[in-house]
């Protein structure tokens, strides 16, 4: 089953499809006339088709319970990684679909957009399937660099350039932390392979482990906290969210968060499970601080994307609560949460991308949504569903995401963390409700100068994605089992 000599290429067909398509699109972009809306639409469709093909191949290739290692033990796949890959591919595909009309409305029609998303997706896939600190680094960088360029895609916009620069510098810092941490781990363990590190810790845990290994782990945790935008490494998030063009923000907010979170979970649980007692308190603190900051800092925000940035920080705090539990239930809860979070965030950004002012400018402030429930009842209903779901109100899916996380925390005896979690969810409910309030309780501003959020820009892709998202969020409570079963299988694949 394990082939150490000849890399088995059939295992990386999905990645291969993505690489070839990305290169193909780049070639076509270089050699043919581009820059028009039509070519941009075509390239985006290529990207969506490539991602869909990769998803189909992945689903058909994978057999439940199967586990394989290839490329000299560098790349691994099991149910856990399979689930993560599905989420990443769906996330990228959905964002590519919903960003189409708005990218054109914001005059970002460079052909690099869809190859960059594909490269970022390949990076994310590599991140989650890496079984080695070096491979993981390649994946992280591939994803990171694509994201920095995506953030800077709208070159004429000063805020976007600023956001991209901030993102790049802080991202580079996180990369340094990661490299330093993994070199420490290599120095003290003599290997970069996850499984070897894991068995080494098991052998040496009786004789006392070197503190260097733990310091290395802390550096890696800091770097990954940056990627998932958890407190205290969250500072870039509001600026980048606000500065980037909204479609790019949607991409940054969706799949990369999921990928980084899965990697975080895997590193903590796969090689370093036995150091659980040491890292748990750190995760508890990060989770606690993220939830609290996410809840309180967003209260005074008026900018929608900034608000969503703080909301993302808070939501990541809840996911980390599942990791802090560090048991089977915790891992399941993380997966369920990430699935639902991905759908909610794609839906939310989809709604925001649809709503535009008279001159097709995007919505910026919460007030721009005033009274849109009378103008666009269906769209406001959809956005309200996502807001109630993000707030965690039953019977919407967001409630079940929180329920499983709290359940994991209670099962691990983390009562304090769970109490902080529920209390900050009440605080956070305020700002999600504020968006509902603006849409439903306020009137359409009578001044003709205010024209935000009054034009609906829809495309067939957008309608499909939004409908799927809202149906899943609304009806998750009827059919929770598919997601729960996948999460359970994912958790079983980990040696916990």
């Amino acid at each position, binding site marked *: 089953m394990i082939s150490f000599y000849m890399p088995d290429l059939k295992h990386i067909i999905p990645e291969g499809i993505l690489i070839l398509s990305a290169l193909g699109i780049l070639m076509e972009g270089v050699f043919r006339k581009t820059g028009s809306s039509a070519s941009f639409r075509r390239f985006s469709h290529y990207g969506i088709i490539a991602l869909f093909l990769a998803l189909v191949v992945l689903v058909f290739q994978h057999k439940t319970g199967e586990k394989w290692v290839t490329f000299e033990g560098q790349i691994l796949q099991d149910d856990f990684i399979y689930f993560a890959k599905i989420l990443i591919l769906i996330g990228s595909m959905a964002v590519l679909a919903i960003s189409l009309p708005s990218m054109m409305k914001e005059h970002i029609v460079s052909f690099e957009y869809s190859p960059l998303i594909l490269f970022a997706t390949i990076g994310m896939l590599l991140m989650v399937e890496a079984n080695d600190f070096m491979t993981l680094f390649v994946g992280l960088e591939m994803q990171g660099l694509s994201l920095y360029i995506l953030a800077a895609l709208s070159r004429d916009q000063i805020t976007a350039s600023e956001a991209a620069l901030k993102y790049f510098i802080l991202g580079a810092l996180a990369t340094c932390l990661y490299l330093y941490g993994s070199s420490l781990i290599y120095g003290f363990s003599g290997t970069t392979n996850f499984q070897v590190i894991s068995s080494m810790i098991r052998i040496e845990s009786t004789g006392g482990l070197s503190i260097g290994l733990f310091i290395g782990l802390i550096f890696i945790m800091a770097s990954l906290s940056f990627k998932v935008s958890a407190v205290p490494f969250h500072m870039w998030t509001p600026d980048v969210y606000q500065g980037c063009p909204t479609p790019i923000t949607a991409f940054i907010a969706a799949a990369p968060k999921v990928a980084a979170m899965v990697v975080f979970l895997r590193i903590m649980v796969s090689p370093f499970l036995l150091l659980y007692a040491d890292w748990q308190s750190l995760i508890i603190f990060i989770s606690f601080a993220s939830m609290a900051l996410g809840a309180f800092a967003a209260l005074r925000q008026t900018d929608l994307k900034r608000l969503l940035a703080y909301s993302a920080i808070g939501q990541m705090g809840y996911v980390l609560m599942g990791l802090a539990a560090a048991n089977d239930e915790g891992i399941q809860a993380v997966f369920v949460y990430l699935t639902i979070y991905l759908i909610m965030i794609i839906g939310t950004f989809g709604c925001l991308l649809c709503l535009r002012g008279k001159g097709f400018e995007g919505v910026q402030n919460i007030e721009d949504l005033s009274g849109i429930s009378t103008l666009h009842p269906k769209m406001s209903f959809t956005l309200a569903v996502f807001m109630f779901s993000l707030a965690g109100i039953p019977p919407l899916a967001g409630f079940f995401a929180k329920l499983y996380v*709290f359940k994991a925390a209670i099962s691990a005896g983390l009562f304090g963390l769970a109490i902080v979690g529920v209390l900050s969810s*009440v605080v956070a409910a305020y700002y999600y*409700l504020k968006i509902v309030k603006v849409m*439903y309780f306020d009137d359409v501003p009578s001044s003709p100068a205010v024209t935000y959020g009054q034009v609906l820009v829809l495309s067939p892709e957008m309608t499909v994605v939004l409908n799927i998202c809202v149906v899943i969020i609304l009806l998750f409570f009827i059919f929770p089992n598919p997601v*729960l*079963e996948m999460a359970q299988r994912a958790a079983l694949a980990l040696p916990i």
Partner: protein
Amino acid sequence: MATLPLLSMTLFLPLLGALAISLNWGNGDVAKANNARWVALWTTLVTLGLAVILWVNFNPVSPGFQFEDKFEWMPLLNIGYHVGVDGISLPLVLLSATLMPICILTSWASIQVRVAEYMIAFLVLETMLLGMFAALDFVLFYVFFEGVLIPMFLIIGIWGGPNRVYAAFKFFLYTLLGSVLSLLAILYIYFEVGGSDIPLALTTPFDPKVQTWLWVAFFASFAVKIPMWPLHTWLPDAHVEAPTAGSVILAGVLLKMGGYGFIRFSLPMFPEASSYFTPMIFTLSIIAIIYASLVALAQTDMKKLIAYSSVAHMGFVTLGIFTVDAQGVQGAVTQMVSHGLISAALFLCVGVVYDRIHSREIADYGGLVHRMPRYAAVFLFFILASVGLPGTSGFVGEFLVLLGAYQVSTWATTLATSGMVLGAAYALWLYRRVIFGVLVKPNLKSISDLHWREKIIFAPLVAGVLIFGIYPMPLLTMMETSVANVIDQYNLALESDAGGAIDPKKSLEIALHPASLKISYFWIATPPLGARKDAPSRVFARSVSAEAIQTSFVKEIRHD
């Protein structure tokens, strides 16, 4: 008939109606609005019909839950869909089903904007409320319990009065804050019991030390809902700003969620903690009764006055529940049903004049009896019912509660009774200022009396209040067995705690033995006043078995 999932049909029929309305058919806005109204009315009426069928087929002497439906929901987590009713939840299910068509009717003309959304919100709310009372799975219960917030938030916020945004937020966040803590308690119970089935959890004994925490977590959620002083401050705002039908549902059903929770969960699952906290509950209830009545005296807004009267009346409910006495608890449930009818009717009365004059200020009215004699009569009837006039259901509830409370604490009963006097004061004074006097205000000179739809709305409420006031037996027999169950379980737990050596099974046998029943009757009939004061717990006043008493005496002697 027996094979039909009758209860589930009752629960989800309103949701089906909401779905039908959301299809939004009809030519033009007027036709669409009318379609929505008729669909909502028929849905709620059929739901009421189903609820009545439940009542007819309900077997009052059988202990345990009836009309149970059980399906797999999340089998991996041992969380299931499980519903059923017993004598405590069925009256509240009936109450909710009765008030809903009334709410739809009263909104018929007064709601003119976004009618379809309004009706959808009410129908979703009905499913949530019925589901909350019928749920026999903790997660399901919580989903319904908190799901109520979304439609109610929208009802207050979209169709409410001038200060509606503040009221909607306060209502939502206040009640959410209370209920999230109970979610954690539910999850803890889930791990203790190994599943979220409520009947299973009800029979699981919990460690008394843990009980205290769980009790407090549940208390946070139920006390906010009921609401108990000092957690009541959301209520006046929400009541005042909500549209009339919203106030009716808030006062009629939402407040009962707390009382229901105390009876269903706090008493049977955490008997030791309940007994420990009883003095606190009594104190808070008494404060609620007296303080809220005093505050009501000072109100200038009619809806606010009735809102504070709700706080006072709910004080009787909590007082009754924690007497843990057959009369007290039955009185509490009766009081909940009766308050559901009476306060709903009072809000409707305010709604009638509000629809005409668009003011809730008491000072804007006066002398209405000259123009609206029928209205004055109906209003008088409900004011007197609210005061607790014998012959109305308000009397039955409060009297039973006081009777139960008297056997436990004389001073609490005395203070609560004085609260009733204050209640009479604010209610009658309100009536005098609004209805009597000389009709001088120019805009009242042409005010019209009740029209036919309003008469239809009030008729069932008048009938209900009168029937349960004169002949409350149907209601009392319905709940008798279930209430006795709760009380027995509570006492058994306390006994086995006090007796130490007695295991629950054995004491059950003793308690059911004719001889011990006789003794328990003796203890209840002639409360030994001297023994009461130095009794280690209130066990003595209960249906205590002879052996348990002996054992605790032996224990006391040993201590000496």
